[in-house]
Every structure is written in structure tokens, then in C-alpha cells.
């Protein structure tokens, strides 16, 4: 366990890491969502995923996080070591906040800090509290938080545990103006430290230099992820 974490920590500081997805294909419930998707992001780069609902933006993030398996295609991290588990060097901030209402804000953060950082004892919840001005909320039960505050709590994971790849699924949903600003400065800092960010969004995240990948430009795109039955049968043969 120790060695894998040393590896993760050292990877953060390696310049030239490159995450590549090759000819990825996604199927959900027997339907093809997208096919032949290629992308690549280099250290210090950000990729914004855009496209209509159901185009597969979240599915792509989940694939990178190791939660879904691509029907075809593969991922590569150009850093020589193929044994790196992609899930372990990623942060995935999904729509669900992954917090327990029965615990306080500080306890929730402390759990993820301990669980995700493992032997690395550098994770400090005060960093997360500070990043989104949550200090006054620390001793409050997480059940009492508003939607935006819960979102900030989830995003706090990004600040306190160093991982090189951030996968953000519409990160600004529910956030107020000030928090969006804090998120932007956190993302800029991450990119300056040679991190990688892949985010789905429908609005402008205000990040200069971000590459935009629009799912509408995919070849043979299934219309909103809905192939008609004839196509489906053909594909299955």
C-alpha cells in the first residue's frame, strides 16, 4: 500500500503525464451511447465535455474512474507504468455528494481524508474547510446543509487529498457565485501543479485554455444515445 501511494504522490510532480482514451465505445443497457471516441489531455490541461443530455458525458467520466467498463477501447497514461490503477489517481465528484447526514461536516471530511489518503497522513480537513469557507459549518450535522453547501463539502475532497486527475460532473451545480470563484481558483492551482481536469458542463466554467470536446461532433453519433431497434440488432449480429 505504501509503495502505491509513493507512486501516486510522485506522479503528481511528473511533468508530461498524458491521459489518452482510444476508440472508446459505451453501451448502456444494450444501447450504444457513443462509439469511436478519442481524447487526450496532458498535464496542466483541462478538457470540458459538452453535449446534449444522454450523450454519455457522465458515462465517460465513470469509465475513467473505473466504475463502468468501456465496451471497446482503452485508456493509457503515458508515464511508462501500466500498472497504475487509474481509479486510484482520480478524484470523481459525481452528482451524489457521498456524505452521511448522521455525521458532522468535519467527521465526513475526516473519514474521506483517512480513507482516500491511506498511509499518506498529509490530508488535512482544514484545507478543505478553508478552500470553500466552510469553517463555520465544521461542527454542524451534514443533514442541515443546503444543496450548495453539500456540493462544497463534496468538492472539499479535491482540496485536501492530492490526486493528479480530477473528474468533475457538472461541478458548479447549486454553487453560489463566491463558491464558483473558489472552485475556479482551486482548479487553476491544480493545473499549475501539472494536474489534469476533465469536467462535464453546460455552462462556461470560466477556465482559460480549456479544450472543449463536444459530443455532438462524434462520428456516427447515436441520436441522444438512442439507436433504433434495427441498428441495435445489426450491431448485435
Amino acid at each position, binding site marked *: 500500500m505504501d509503495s502505491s501511494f509513493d507512486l501516486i504522490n510522485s506522479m503528481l510532480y511528473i511533468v508530461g503525464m498524458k491521459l489518452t482514451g482510444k476508440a472508446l465505445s459505451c453501451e448502456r443497457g444494450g444501447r450504444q451511447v457513443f462509439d469511436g471516441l478519442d481524447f487526450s489531455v496532458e498535464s496542466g490541461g483541462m478538457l470540458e465535455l459538452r453535449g446534449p443530455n444522454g450523450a454519455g458525458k457522465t458515462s465517460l467520466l465513470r469509465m475513467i474512474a473505473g466504475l463502468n*467498463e468501456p465496451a471497446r477501447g482503452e485508456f493509457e497514461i503515458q508515464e511508462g507504468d501500466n500498472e497504475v490503477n487509474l481509479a486510484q489517481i482520480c*478524484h470523481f465528484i*459525481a452528482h451524489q455528494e*457521498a456524505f*452521511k447526514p448522521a*455525521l458532522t461536516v468535519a467527521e465526513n471530511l475526516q473519514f474521506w481524508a483517512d*480513507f482516500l489518503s491511506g498511509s499518506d497522513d498529509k490530508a488535512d480537513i482544514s484545507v478543505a474547510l478553508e478552500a470553500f469557507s466552510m469553517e463555520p459549518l465544521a461542527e454542524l450535522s451534514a443533514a442541515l446543509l443546503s444543496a450548495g453547501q453539500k456540493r462544497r463539502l463534496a468538492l472539499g475532497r479535491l482540496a485536501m487529498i492530492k490526486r493528479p486527475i480530477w473528474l468533475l460532473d457538472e461541478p458548479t451545480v447549486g454553487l453560489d457565485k463566491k463558491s464558483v470563484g473558489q472552485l475556479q481558483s482551486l482548479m487553476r492551482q491544480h493545473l499549475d501543479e501539472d494536474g489534469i481536469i476533465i469536467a462535464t458542463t453546460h455552462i462556461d466554467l470560466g477556465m482559460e485554455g480549456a479544450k472543449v470536446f463536444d459530443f455532438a461532433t462524434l462520428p456516427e453519433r447515436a441520436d441522444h444515445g438512442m439507436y433504433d431497434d434495427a441498428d441495435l440488432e445489426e450491431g448485435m449480429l
Partner: protein
Amino acid sequence: MKSFMALLKRDLVLAWRQGGGVGTAVGFFLTVIVLLPLGIGPDQSLLQRIAPGGLWIALLLSVLLSADRIYQADYDDGSLEVLTMGAMPLEIVAAVKSLSHWLTSGLPLAIIAPLLGFLLNLDTSLVFPIMGAMMLGSIGLSFLASLGAAVTVGLRRGGLLVSLLVLPLYVPVMIFGISASSGGLSGPDVSSAAMGILSGITLVILVVAPFGSGAALRTYMR
């Protein structure tokens, strides 16, 4: 190790605060044992004969009562997805969650079982055999319950299905658990042999169940 302790601690705190863990299991166990003599009648020798069996059945049902909640909350609030992204394999996550289920259901029940046994006129020489067999056997019960819970985690109201899936697997644990609990009554050899087999069964479950749970959880998240 830090992740291990963090997860165990969180689950124990949650079980304690939400009151759904220890309280429910002990309360249900108590209710069944209190009702049993009322239903059977005041025949002391009959009660004494069925006491170990009654305690075991009550234990089994109490453990099942909280089984479907082992993964449900984590699945619903997205925690399970983040749990897959740590350095700890999902199989170990499943083992830790089964362990915390045992600590909040099987273990306290095994401790109070001899006490409640006096309501059933339990033979005093059986107090320690019952406690030992229940502590050992309930580990297996919790790990099997977590397997059932993992297989049904995506289903609403999966509780009944968990019971149906897991009950057949509980049979060997219960059979050898009860004969191990009978102490010297059916001969010292019988009970110690049964205790040995019970340990064997529990060890097998301990090794196999987390892999099954991990695989089932992964499939559901796909």
C-alpha cells in the same frame, strides 16, 4: 490499515447514532425470546429442551433484520463509488462492512443470549458453550448477510429477497451451531466436533463471502 480503521470507525459510529444497528437487533432478539415462553406455556422441562434452538433462531432472524441495510445507504448516497477509488480493494471494503455488521448485531446478541436464556430455563452449564458458538457462528451469519445484501443492493425493498437468498446458506451454520451449543448434554465429543466444523464453516464464509460481495457491488455500479 488507516483506510481499514477509518471505514470501520465510520460504520460503527453510524450504527450507533442512527439507532438502527445495535438497538434494533437487541430489541428484536429480546422480543422474540420474551414471547417464546408465553407462546409455549410454562412447561419448564420443555422450555429447557428448546432453549438453545430458540436462542439460535432468534439470533438468526435478528441478524437478518438489519442485513439489507449493510450497503444500501452507501449505494444510495454515492459513497460506494468513492469507496472503490481508494487503495483498498472492494473485497476488503465488503469485509470491513460485514465485520462492522457483526460488531453491531451478532456480537452484542451473543453476549446477552445466555442472560435471556434464563427466561427459557436454560441449563446453566450451557451458558459458555452457547456464548462461544454464537460468537463464532454469528461472524459467518454477518458475512453471509452482507453477500445477500450486496446481491440485492440496487433493488428497492430487497429485504425479503435477502432473507430468501441467504436462509439456505444459514442452515449449516445453524445446525452445527446448535449442536455445539448443546455442551456436554449430547456427549462432550459431539459438541467439540460440532464446534470444530462450525469454525471451519465460518472460516470458509469469511474468505469466500467478501469476494462474492465485491463482485456483486461492482456489477451493480456498472
